[in-house]
């Protein structure tokens, strides 16, 4: 089935220019495009802007590897069991990465603006928060009545990188279980790269077209990466590899940790 849009991991990552805006699918430690992210780090991309509602391993690793200039996210941390994202935190504190903090819903709204072809999207809430001030979110008058509402600026990723359960060689793809913001990302981004647990026959996917949330014509390339979310989980195939996450964090607690980590982990 190596045909159609299926390419190697190296090639797909080579498409991404320094300075690109890259949306990463999944959420925290679930169905992240982890292997793809490691290859970005290995290829030494620079100045990327990362877009995600809530990230951990993927964002932290890219920060550690020096790939990132800005992070547009609502939440960056490993949650209670593993704690704060050490590299993201350090690099923001050192002024080397800019934390473009969003409410998760403002990431969603900014992606909606991109998907809907409009320059901004009104969003409920935010009243009383300091975020609009420090992040330059505007408030505009309701032209149909009283009141005003915050609007967030369009955020159009150059790339959405989405790890899916199944794809055919043209890019018709399925996610089983939680989709998080991945479907919206696939619409908002200029280009989509899928990393897929399984490359399957298109005929089988066509038996239930309503389950194929990503249509082929939005997809630029597909990388066959079984286990490609690890150490994050990929429902329903495998859970979070907690030892794997710990190993990443242990490497990070050493000096030149991420380089060594990337040499040890494959792909």
């Amino acid at each position, binding site marked *: 089935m190596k045909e159609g849009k299926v390419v190697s991991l190296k090639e797909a990552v080579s498409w991404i220019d320094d300075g690109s805006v890259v949306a990463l699918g999944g959420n*925290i430690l*679930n169905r992240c495009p982890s292997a793809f992210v490691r290859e970005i780090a290995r290829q030494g991309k620079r100045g990327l802007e990362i877009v995600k509602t809530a990230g951990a391993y993927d964002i932290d690793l890219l920060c550690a590897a020096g790939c990132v200039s800005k992070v547009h996210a609502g939440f960056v941390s490993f949650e209670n069991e593993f704690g704060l994202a050490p590299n993201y935190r350090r690099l923001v504190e050192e002024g080397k990465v800019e934390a473009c903090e969003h*409410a998760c819903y403002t990431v969603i709204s900014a992606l909606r603006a991109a998907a809907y072809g409009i320059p901004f999207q009104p969003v409920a809430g*935010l009243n*009383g*928060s300091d975020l609009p001030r420090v992040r330059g979110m505007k408030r505009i008058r309701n032209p149909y009545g009283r009141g005003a509402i915050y609007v967030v600026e369009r955020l159009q990723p150059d790339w959405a990188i989405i790890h899916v359960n199944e794809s055919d060689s043209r890019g018709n793809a399925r996610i089983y279980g939680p989709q998080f913001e991945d479907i919206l990302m696939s619409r908002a981004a200029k280009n989509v790269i899928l990393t897929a647990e399984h490359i399957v026959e298109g005929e089988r996917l066509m038996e239930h077209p309503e389950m194929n949330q990503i249509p082929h014509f939005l997809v630029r390339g597909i990388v066959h990466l079984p286990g490609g979310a690890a150490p994050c989980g990929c429902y329903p195939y495998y859970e979070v590899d907690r030892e794997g996450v710990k190993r990443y964090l242990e490497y990070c607690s050493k000096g030149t940790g991420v380089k060594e980590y990337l040499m040890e982990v494959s792909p």
Partner: protein
Amino acid sequence: MNYGPAEMMIVSMARLLRNGERVFHGVASPLPMIAIQLAKRLHAPDLVYLNIPGGVDASPHRLPTSTVDSLLVENSSSLFSLTEIFDLSARGGLDTAFISGVQIDLYGRINLSCIGDFKQPKVRLTGGAGSAVILPTAGRVILWRTKHNPKVFVKKCDFITAKGNVERVITPLCIFRREKGRLVLESIHPYSNLKEVIQETGFPIESRKEYSITKEPEDGELTILNQIDPMRVRDLEFK
């Protein structure tokens, strides 16, 4: 039966939940995740449980350590994504949300963004997740924090990540209720006392006269709690 702050907090949260209402917890929220399951087993079987993976009324075969784990779609009646939950809240349809804060001030405003200046932080925190939208739009917000000290309950947040419809704050020592925009002491947990609460709170404790003692967790509550959380996922928040 024995109980500690974790059990006291979870039981306190569960008691606040009403049958039939729509309740959401987000990321890094083991106590609310457990409290919701407890309430559903006790007095609120028809509570509508919403979470980030999108399971509606999920009933996972075991509790995950992450509260955005895909296990939280198990035995759901439908999927209702995070985007949909925000939309629901935005249009006034979310009844109750659980949110935490690294700093919480007298007005129930929270900081999850930074210690020090936002642009040049001393400590970069996790970020507020959905809180800046959820606090102003949800019907009510129940804040919780597993540490109660003057660094958490502060006179002034370094940064206001979110402000809004906070109704109660559950801490290891007490429960605050928000009245006329300010947190007032509602009850002190049986193992604590007023002196300790005052000492560990960075803002002035108001309306001292009317507070009560939190009702101890009942054996029935604790039994079911232990059935729901035999592996003590709840302790993760106290590390």
